[in-house]
């Protein structure tokens, strides 16, 4: 019997010990997706045939099993798989079939994982709710009328609703951590350069990083280890040894120094979120951690800095979608310019157009110094704030989001209000630092709350160790939304 509630590590053990087969596990995941997806809309595309073929091959495999042998995994639909559609949630890529595999796909498959499908995301990762997907939003399994968060919302839903034990997302300003918090799962954004971006559809190249969603910290650690490491196909991937992350999970956080930037916890943070956060700090203290207050004075400028830097990079990255190479072209172009202009107007959604235009504006003559250059300088100050803080603490703790999951449709009319919800997540990518979100409570409405820990560059091991100790001590990570248990 292939129980979809097993963790990735338990699934692997069950297959390796012969209790079940990779094929049975894969079929169980596919059945579960078929049953739940109409209501949750986590997946945009499921390739059952490819997944089953792969699982059958694993069952015949003579080589020793990999660390993710037979584990079903979902990919955010902005990572390419050869021969299959990758849309990045955009109409402009609706018919785009990739001629190559992303490095993370190759590495997952080398580790034995079985890719079952591609999840719903905000168009080109621009959004915090999946409502900017051209293919409709995903629904939060804790309350179907609420957003799962975004942009990697579908991946968070897949894991939260036990459709797959693991999923990959990408994080530019919080796109892994925010949906992880809103859906009550573990989500990790690695240090910039830890995971290859080859085959990740670019949004903002100096910020984008791929990372795992999981129900347990152990699964996140195993998955991160499988996808990490230098890649000749991505010059920004770092030449650094990949630690054995699972071995970092000792359960011991005695003496861990936790810094809390209390000055950021002002207005706008929901009382239930604040309560859950304070309780999580008390738990960390009981586990032997020491708490202190830290200052991140420039973090109040992190959102404008992020939206200036990210949109500038996006305006450049998305210039390639011109109607020539990626599947979509407006009908009946009369001339080259007409083809470009109409293809892009018809192919991109409203949020993508807004960000392309904002980025074009801040890079344009006369505004470059006042906006783009200025934002890059403030980015340096944000990074330095963390360097100062890490002289005295090992991790920085904040709630992942100021509120629990909001209702679908509630924030779509005012883009700026949607941006302001990224207040706690945008700093880590600006500074290139790793950060994790773990479940740390439920609001009175039974909606999950996330605890975010940000660490030193390349120190995912400490984040994982602290998160593992915390989640073992508290009930939150093992709580499931009502109605999801089969």
């Amino acid at each position, binding site marked *: 019997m292939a129980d979809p509630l097993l963790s990735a590590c338990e699934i692997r053990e069950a297959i390796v010990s012969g209790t079940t087969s990779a094929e049975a596990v894969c079929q169980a995941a596919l059945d579960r997706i078929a049953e739940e997806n109409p209501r949750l809309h986590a997946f945009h595309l499921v390739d059952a045939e490819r997944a089953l073929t792969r699982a059958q091959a694993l069952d015949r495999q003579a080589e020793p099993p990999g660390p993710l042998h037979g584990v079903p995994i979902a990919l955010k639909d902005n990572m390419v798989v050869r021969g299959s559609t990758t849309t990045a949630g955009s109409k402009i890529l609706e018919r785009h*079939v990739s001629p190559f595999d992303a490095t993370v796909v190759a590495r997952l498959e080398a580790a034995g994982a079985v890719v079952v499908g591609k999840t719903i995301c905000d168009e080109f990762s621009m959004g915090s709710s999946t409502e900017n997907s051209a293919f409709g939003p995903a629904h939060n399994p804790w309350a179907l009328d609420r957003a799962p968060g975004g942009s990697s919302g579908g991946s968070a839903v897949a894991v939260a609703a036990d459709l797959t034990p693991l999923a990959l997302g990408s994080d530019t300003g919080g796109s892994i951590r925010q949906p992880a918090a809103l859906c009550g799962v573990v989500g990790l954004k690695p240090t910039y350069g830890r995971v290859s971006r080859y085959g990740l559809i670019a949004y903002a190249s100096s910020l984008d990083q791929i990372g795992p969603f999981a129900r347990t910290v152990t699964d996140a650690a195993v998955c991160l280890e499988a996808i990490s490491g230098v890649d000749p196909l991505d010059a920004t991937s770092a030449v650094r040894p990949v630690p054995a992350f699972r071995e970092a999970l000792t359960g011991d956080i005695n003496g861990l120094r936790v810094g809390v930037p209390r000055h950021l916890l002002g207005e706008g943070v929901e009382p239930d979120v604040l309560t859950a956060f304070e309780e999580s700090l008390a738990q960390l203290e009981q586990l032997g951690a020491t708490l202190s207050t830290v200052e991140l004075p420039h973090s109040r400028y992190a959102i404008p800095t992020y939206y200036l830097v990210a949109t500038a990079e996006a305006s450049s990255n998305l210039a390639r979608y011109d109607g020539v*190479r990626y599947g979509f072209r407006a009908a009946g172009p009369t001339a080259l310019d007409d083809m470009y202009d109409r293809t*892009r107007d018809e192919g*991109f959604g409203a949020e993508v157009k807004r960000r392309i*235009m904002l980025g*074009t504006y801040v890079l344009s003559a006369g505004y470059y110094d006042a906006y783009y250059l200025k934002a890059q300088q403030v980015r340096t100050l944000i990074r330095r704030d963390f360097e100062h803080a890490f002289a005295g603490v090992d991790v920085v703790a904040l709630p992942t989001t100021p509120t629990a999951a909001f209702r679908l449709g509630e924030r779509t009319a005012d883009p700026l209000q949607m941006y302001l919800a990224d207040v706690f997540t945008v700093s880590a990518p600006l500074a*290139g630092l790793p950060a994790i979100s773990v479940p740390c409570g439920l609001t009175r409405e039974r909606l999950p709350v996330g605890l975010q820990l940000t660490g030193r560059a390349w120190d995912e091991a400490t984040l994982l160790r602290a998160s593992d100790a915390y989640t073992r001590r508290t009930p939150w990570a093992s709580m499931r939304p009502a109605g999801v248990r089969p």
Partner: protein
Amino acid sequence: MALTPPAIDVRRIAGLARLALTPDEVELFSTQLASILAYATTVQEVDTAGVPPTSHPLSHEPRWRDDVPAPSLDREEVLANAPDAAARAGLFKVPKVL
């Protein structure tokens, strides 16, 4: 000294960004972009005299690699994504330029 964002000329920016906006979109985006820019202008409050810009979070120097020829993507698979491509000739096709 905070700088007041000038009114954004959405038509001009859309032209630079190669977007053929509808009149409705011009109106909507003018309002929205003005409010986003007014907010983004808060970065002007920060004293950044002498602060170097961060264009990239990488601490290491760019890496060199050997220039070794390797197979590139399959031409047929690449052209399969190109609308109206002249696949047999191995060419992308666009509307008449001259």
